[in-house]
């Protein structure tokens, strides 16, 4: 005997039970429509049902997705000095979370905040909606303030090893130098520190000691991924001829370092990095 169900199912696109369940669902909705059709205000109900979907899918969602993308874009183009402070706790979620909290409260309690329905509100409660805007603003302020507080604590905590290294090197670092970044070794200790004027590195050939080499004395720095080392080539006549620094990863050290070498060259005169001969100015 031939069973037509599978062929029907395939033409329909799913199991027959699927069809039965959905027809039942639509029939119920149809019945509700017949109950409502005599209501003079039914059109408003239908409009509100449609507006609820459109309002969420085509207004609210695009709006918050766009706001989130804008926030990320703004954080990306922040002044580089903000970003070069290593290590940085990404601020994104510390802005997102209080903004979402404030947005959620605005969405739920909008009538009170914008004082909509004043008359019915007053008839029902004998009060006015006057306090809600202020309260919402205070709650928003509180959420952002708490987030800022947590961010400050997290940043401090994340920066603690950084500051410890800077403290240790303080006698070497000159007052006008600004620390830019630190790179670490596999034993979790700092292996290199970059300032606006010099590269500091832990030299452990004999006994571990921090050494300083000015960017003006460096011909080039190179990362060797096979040995996980940073090779520093000094200019002829510089106090440090060459150095090998063991690090887990160079991070932004190469990018920043090359930038500083070039800047120093521009200040002190042009140089051919490949040839590593002394520049006229140094």
């Amino acid at each position, binding site marked *: 005997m031939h*069973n037509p169900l*599978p*062929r029907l*199912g*395939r*033409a*329909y*696109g*799913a*199991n027959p*039970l*699927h*069809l039965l*369940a*959905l027809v*039942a*669902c*639509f029939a*119920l*909705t149809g*019945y*509700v429509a017949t*109950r*409502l059709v005599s209501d003079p*205000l*039914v059109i*408003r*109900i239908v409009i*509100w*049902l*449609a507006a*609820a*979907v459109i309002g*969420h*899918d085509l207004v609210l*969602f695009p709006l918050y997705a766009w706001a989130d993308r804008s926030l*990320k874009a703004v954080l990306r183009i922040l002044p580089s000095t903000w970003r070069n402070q290593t290590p940085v706790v*990404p601020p*994104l*979620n510390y802005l997102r*979370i209080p903004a*979402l*909290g404030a947005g*959620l*409260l605005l969405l*739920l*309690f909008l*009538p*009170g*905040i914008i004082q909509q*329905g004043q008359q*019915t509100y007053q*008839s*029902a*409660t*004998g*009060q006015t909606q006057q306090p809600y805007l202020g*309260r*919402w603003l205070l*709650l928003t302020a509180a959420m952002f303030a708490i987030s800022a507080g947590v961010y400050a604590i997290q940043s401090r905590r994340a920066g603690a090893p950084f500051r410890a290294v800077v403290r240790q090197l303080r006698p070497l670092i000159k007052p006008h130098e600004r620390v830019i970044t630190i790179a670490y070794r596999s034993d979790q200790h700092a292996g290199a520190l970059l300032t606006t004027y010099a590269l500091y590195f832990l030299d452990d050939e004999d006994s571990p000691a921090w050494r300083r080499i000015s960017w003006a004395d460096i011909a080039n720095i190179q990362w060797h991924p096979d040995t996980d080392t940073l090779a520093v080539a000094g200019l002829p006549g510089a106090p440090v001829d060459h150095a090998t620094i063991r690090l887990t990863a160079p991070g932004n050290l190469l990018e920043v370092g090359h930038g500083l070498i070039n800047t120093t060259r521009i200040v002190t005169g042009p140089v051919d990095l490949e040839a590593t001969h002394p520049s006229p100015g140094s």
Partner: protein
Amino acid sequence: MSSTMSPPGESPPPGPIDPAEGVETPAEQPSYGFPAGLWRAIEQHRPPGLVGTRAWRSPLRGPWLTSVFGAVLLAALPLVILTGLLDYIAYGPQFGQAFPSNVGWLHLPIFDWPTRPSWLFRLTEGLHVGLGLVLIPVVLAKLWSVVPKLFSWPPARSVAQVLERLSLLLLVGGILFEIATGVLNIQYDYIFGFSFYTGHYYGAMVFIGAFVVHVGLKLPTMIKSLGSRSLRTELRTSRADTQPEPADTGGLVPTNPAPATLSRRGALALVGGGSLLVAVLTAGQTIGGITRSTALLLPRGRSYGDGPNAFQINRTATAAGITTHDTGTGWRLTVHAGPRVIQLNRTQLLAMRQHTATLPIACVEGWSTTQTWTGVPLRELAALASVFDPHSAHIRSLEQAGAFNQAVLQRNQILDPDALLALRVNGADLSVDHGYPARIIVPALPGVHCTKWVESIEFRSDGHA
């Protein structure tokens, strides 16, 4: 899904049948329903400007995360639905005073709403409104998690998918409509311009139908997806270690994921935190006491100052058009019982045996307040009119207009020893905003039926209903 839903007792289908057939057909091996040419043509005519699949970049989206939100809603929404329907019954549909009153075949089973425990309506209404509000962040998160499907192309490859999409419109439209009308109603904002009761009731019916079907169709997928990852592991995974879920057939997992800016643990905490925030700002309106002031943004979190009558007012005397003339010394309570009519002034009522009860008054907006009421037990008023076995009592207010200027009480709501015609509250006379000269207070009765400024009570025995 299709194989698990085969009608029971059916032999294995003859002929070739694609086990992946159904609504979740993988995009890479499309199979079309009838007429295939139409569906293929739709697929090939992608509207310009439609968001492409590569635009969805969140690495968190995937069947597991969607299923977690789905499971939370599946566990909690039935409670919101059930308490909402119970509240309809609490309004007394047998007397035509539950709105909308004539719902045809969509009427609920009718039973006498109990008077005990006295906090029953406070609980059901508080849960309905409170839990409903708390679930809003979860609903929004669930919708966020599936939003790529809304913009996916083609919208359907078979009639089955078209119908399922339509049912999703009812599902999403239904819940958003219920949320919108509910949220506006608890803030006394009637901008929608139709009867809240009518809209919310019928909206619920549409939503319930779509919800039941959605659960029926998706439950196997949800269970399977929940099992695909360990919640415990996810709760231990940091942002740095967060990877997208394995590619799925449903189009939720991004084909072009961005690095995670939030772990799944963080996403769950964010949604949970949103719910917690709403809970903290809502619970006070139901719990009352010192927690009331935490309902900072709700009408019923506000203080009315100090004093025996300083508690939440529902409909002021001014709004109800009650004048001092109505409530002055000329006021009489008229008690009808069949042909018998008794008139009592306030002094006579105060001379009767007074009973004191501490009872909550709870309203449809989810708020409640518990006060100590003193007055004449309704059953003693009935006995005074020689009605010893009342079937119902029809209470009328001095208020001329207004949907709640009268109410019918059931037998148990008259005979409960704490059911009162209250004259005093917290040791003082009722204020005019709280119903002076006399108001009804009955355990577990919806607040709007605790009629204020009572003008008359008509006790009806069986046969007079």
